[in-house]
């Protein structure tokens, strides 16, 4: 069930603020460009509402922080894991594909999950069709599904969603 839509005004203000902070960083805080940046940020935020309408999912700051911590630590594991396999003379990989049924709702949560999984250890998103996600695994012998479910829980927390395992249990 998608949550109640967020007011467009809140979405525009939020997106405009993020864009303006990005502008401020890109111009290194140059004061002569701030006014121009503010106007451009506001315009882009309004236009973005037509291209990507407000999804109704709002980002929870606490969930986002926890997710970033999880993401950073797993990124290190992912990089070291592939490097270890590559430097080992036997090249211990056994590539394969698995298809999973996702518990996350459609839209931003699924999109964030698919993109995150491409950077997580041993998985690469190939195809996202409805609630079916096909992954390429570096080593099919690993406990891939357990890792994916954990990532799914972390992504759910960003949007304040409690991820139930109903889809998993229904299979």
């Amino acid at each position, binding site marked *: 069930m998608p949550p109640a839509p967020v007011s467009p005004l809140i979405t525009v203000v939020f997106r405009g603020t993020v864009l303006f*902070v*990005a502008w*401020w*960083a*890109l*111009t*290194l*805080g140059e004061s002569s460009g701030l006014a121009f940046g503010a106007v451009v940020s506001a315009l882009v935020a309004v236009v973005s509402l037509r291209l990507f309408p407000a999804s109704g999912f709002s980002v929870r700051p606490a969930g986002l922080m926890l997710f970033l911590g999880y993401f*950073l630590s797993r*990124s*290190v594991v*992912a*990089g*070291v*894991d*592939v*490097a270890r396999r*590559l*430097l080992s003379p036997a*090249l211990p*990989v056994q*590539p394969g594909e698995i298809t999973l049924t996702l518990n996350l709702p459609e839209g931003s949560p699924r999109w964030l999950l*698919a*993109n*995150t999984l*491409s*950077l997580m*250890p*041993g998985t*690469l*998103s*190939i*195809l996202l069709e409805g609630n079916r996600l*096909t992954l*390429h695994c*570096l080593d099919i012998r690993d406990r891939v599904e357990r890792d994916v479910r954990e990532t799914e829980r972390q992504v759910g927390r960003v949007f304040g969603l409690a991820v139930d395992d109903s889809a998993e249990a229904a299979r």
Partner: protein
Amino acid sequence: MTDPLMFVMQSVLLVLGCLFFAVGTLGLFRFSDTLTRIHALTKVDNLGLGFIVLALLPLAPSLAGGLKTLLIWAAALAASATSAHLIARAVHVRPEPPETGEADHD
């Protein structure tokens, strides 16, 4: 900047970052199919760039400069995740022809 401990830490992080980039590129040669190669390029390079960004952060001239450095990493991550997915999907839709034994040397 004159702190020797900081200098040593930054040097170690920079070297680590470059080593990971080198290993990621090694993946292009050692792995034999497109999808496995993408694993090497996305994950190892992500970590390599992360180390380099971490090493450069203390050198940032201002808060905005530091944020800009972090934005570079975030943009590279988003680009690598997206392009990895697009290439993987393209390979999935139209599988590549089998390799002609050239990668079987090692």
